């Protein structure tokens, strides 16, 4: 932690003012170079984001139109839309979040309120963090082996299950983080009034952490809305209109994947329109989540 600039190499500033000046110049030059590199790195990062957004806006808006929302997918050449993938994605993301959120909230609550510092709590936290970053394609494979193979086919429910598994660790993380921010004096006050612990958690802790928990849920929705890999082997996709969860179900990311890799111009256009929709939705949710959190502070 000590700063020994050029010790032993230079005779030292006190002995030679010229050397001192040169040394100072060199250090300042080095500092300026690194500052510029830092600025460049930031600009490069922003340039990537800008390039993605501009490409999406340009290619997506070309193909965007009302028919995207009114027509179902169709063979190349006949004018199709993205109605069934959009509806399928909404259904699966909504149900996946609805199933995964309560579980995630309970786990997060357990970690923050019951298992602080305990070995079992640390283990659960560790496992949840692994799930948070685990490759999502493996969750798709897992759900395939437990829900698709035994039940004889791809289904919307399998897709919902895969997305729910992805939602859980996201909600666990934010719930625990937000509950940990609540001062203990608040808990002591509630317990001091004679309330049972579960009332303290539900009516006081959850309530004061609500905006943070909502942020977590929004982020979880944003995360699963764009997931492709886990849906490839679970809900598979469906070119016809279907809201039956026991049958294969279309989803926007899987449709984009199929269309973008096709040789047909109109399909590729639809893929760009879908990509624009998803990205706007996901980034919008992220920004909304942030503003919910900030609004409280």
């Amino acid at each position, binding site marked *: *932690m000590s*700063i020994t600039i050029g010790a032993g190499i230079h005779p030292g500033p006190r002995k030679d003012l010229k050397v001192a000046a040169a040394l100072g110049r060199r*250090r*300042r030059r080095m500092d300026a170079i690194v*500052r510029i590199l*830092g*600025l460049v*790195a*930031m600009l*490069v*990062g922003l340039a*990537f*984001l800008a390039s*993605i957004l501009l*490409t*999406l806006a340009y290619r997506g808006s070309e193909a965007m139109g009302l028919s995207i929302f009114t027509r179902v997918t169709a063979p190349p050449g006949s004018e199709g839309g993205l109605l069934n993938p959009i509806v399928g994605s909404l259904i699966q993301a909504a149900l996946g979040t609805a199933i995964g959120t309560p*579980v995630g909230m*309970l*786990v997060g*609550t*357990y970690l923050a309120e*019951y*298992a602080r510092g305990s070995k079992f*709590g640390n283990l*659960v936290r560790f*496992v949840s*963090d*692994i*799930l948070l970053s*685990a*490759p*999502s*394609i*493996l969750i798709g*494979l*897992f759900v395939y*082996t*437990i829900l698709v193979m035994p039940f004889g086919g791809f289904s919307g429910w399998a897709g919902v299950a895969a997305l729910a598994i992805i939602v*859980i*660790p996201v909600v666990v993380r934010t719930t625990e983080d937000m509950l940990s921010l609540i001062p203990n004096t608040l808990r*002591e006050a509630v317990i001091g009034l004679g309330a*049972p*612990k*579960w009332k303290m958690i*539900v009516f006081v802790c959850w309530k004061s952490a609500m905006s943070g928990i909502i942020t977590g849920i929004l982020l979880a929705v944003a995360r699963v809305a*764009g*997931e*492709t*890999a886990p849906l490839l*082997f679970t809900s598979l996709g469906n070119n016809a209109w279907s809201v039956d969860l026991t049958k294969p179900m279309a989803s926007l990311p899987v449709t*984009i994947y199929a269309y*973008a890799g096709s040789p047909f111009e109109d399909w590729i256009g639809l*893929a760009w329109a879908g*990509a624009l929709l*998803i*990205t706007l939705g*996901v*980034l919008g949710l*992220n920004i909304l989540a*942030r503003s919910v959190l900030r609004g409280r502070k």
Partner: protein
Amino acid sequence: MSQAATADTPHPAATRRSRGNVGDIVFEGACRGAAVLVLILLGAIIVELFLAGLPAFRAFGLPFVWSTDWDPVQEVFGAGVSIYGTVVTAVLAIVLAVPLAFGIAFYLTELAPPWLRRPVGTAIELLAAVPSIIYGMWGFFVIAPAFAQYIQPTIIDTVGELPLVGFLFQGAPFGTGIFTAAFILAIMILPFIAATMRDVFEQVPPVYKESAYGLGATTWEVMRSVVLPYTRVSVVGGIMLGLGRALGETMAVTFVIGNANRISTSLFGPGNTIASLVALEFGESEAGSLKFASLLALGFILFVLSFLVLAASRYLLRSRLKA
């Protein structure tokens, strides 16, 4: 804090309450049950992938891990090529992303004017929110053509001519391939690494930095000699987190890696990764076939790989998590 003066003689109502409080028992049970469910989930994923992949491990034995065969006609499968592709793309992505992430974190914590920090930080974090499939399309339609036309020919003509390292950068400029996949991966993990670095840099006690400034150190010297040594372990943890993410990334890689089951000496050559191979071939494999088992065995290997890396990352970041 505790002033439990009346603890020895509790009020009768209090005992009745705590003893008969069904709500507390139910609620704690539900929370604990959910926590156990998470453990079971991870255990089940590992066990299921292993069991489903077991026929492949039985048929090919340990050489499955390094065998480079992948021949659906002859029913001979090996994981060598895709493990190679997975590791090379992920490591190359780290090499590309870390300097950039460090620059961004350095800029955000030390250089940027305060009013700029939040919007720029948010913009970088939004890069992490963009879905994988969007990176795939962008990589395939924007980056790959640009690489094929401008960047790869230049590199092939310059670096490709060098002795020793030249062979890594030779071949035809397809645009897609290992290098492009690593490049896209680098952008995808950039926000994770940058955000971790920024967060740990901000945790350095100001008094350390101020003492260094007081001695006349420049911003860069403070970063190099105070901030980095103080946060070294967590920074490596953040890099491991990025590595873990890069290993399992599927859709973006599938679009741009070229999907060829061979190991090419050139980084510009096509290849595949475990995730991209599974994504592409799983739909064509019959349940119960040897190919199916091999793909699930690959999934198991990928899980073990990312588990190890993510566990290491968690371990290194533990001090940050406690704070």
